[in-house]
């Protein structure tokens, strides 16, 4: 996927626009950036990013990762996500990268890491299952039972 396609993909999601999410493609590498926006703050006294904003950012990252391999198909739908908050989200830019652990015929298992200053110091991690859109070539009755 080219940088331009990634930008268009993110631009097509109103919620991602509201969070201010940007896409970066460097060769095979794909990551999302959540620039610091005052509207993403959850605790103004600390200050800290809202857990929901960080969680939503990682969900978008997981869905974009699945979609980029099947750009012509619709988005997948989240079934269940587990979010661990590891460090306070400081009011600086945040990055997220997703890894598809397993992509089956109907469900993908994805892990996302979100970090700020250092990749080795993640601020949050998401692990989730996403329901994949039906592929036009899918024919359940002809699928090999495994």
């Amino acid at each position: 996927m080219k940088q331009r396609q990634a930008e268009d993909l993110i631009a097509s999601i109103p919620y991602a626009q509201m969070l201010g999410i940007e896409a970066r493609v460097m060769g095979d590498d794909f990551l999302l950036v959540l620039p610091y926006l005052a509207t993403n703050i959850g605790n103004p006294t600390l200050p800290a990013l809202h857990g929901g904003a960080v969680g939503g950012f990682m969900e978008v990252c997981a869905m974009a990762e699945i979609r980029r391999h099947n750009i012509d198909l619709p988005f997948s739908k989240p079934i269940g996500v587990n979010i661990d908050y590891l460090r306070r989200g400081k009011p600086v830019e945040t990055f997220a990268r997703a890894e598809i652990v397993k992509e089956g015929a109907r469900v993908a298992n994805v892990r996302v890491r979100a970090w700020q200053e250092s990749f080795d110091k993640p601020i949050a991690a998401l692990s989730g299952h996403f329901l994949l859109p039906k592929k036009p070539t899918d024919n359940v009755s002809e699928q090999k039972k495994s």
Partner: protein
Amino acid sequence: MSALIERLWEIGPVMVDGTPHANAIGMKFVAVDKGRATLSLPYNTALIGDPRSRVLAGGAVTTLLDQACGLAAMAGFDALGPIATLSLRIDYQRAATPGETVIAEAICYKTTRNVAFIRAVAHDGNEEDPVATAQACFMVTGKQYKVSGDTDSKDEAPAS
């Protein structure tokens, strides 16, 4: 009504409106009680996650549930103080109906000295047909203080 709950009714709406991200997505305070909180999220096209279906983004529901769980956690402790989300698990039962307000009801069913355990349901009018269910843990991150007037308080608020 205990002084703590009375105080929570005062600060509940302020806490939602005073949380920039909750405010930005249009979240509203509905109710609070001992270990319970209800918040709502009116439908907003800026929160659409899938432009084809116009369904709210999972992340918007995540934020609503996180905030409701946080308020329930705060209402679950016997003293007020800063808390932070440790973990949040969300199961999406179905897509939220486009155009409908999503309501999140959270119950803090257990607190220890430093941790609160909460479960929550998000629905768009019928509790029996949830949009999502959540399970969360929150942790105390700073000094808690008793709300004056609660006679069962063992230790008083610090003088400082």
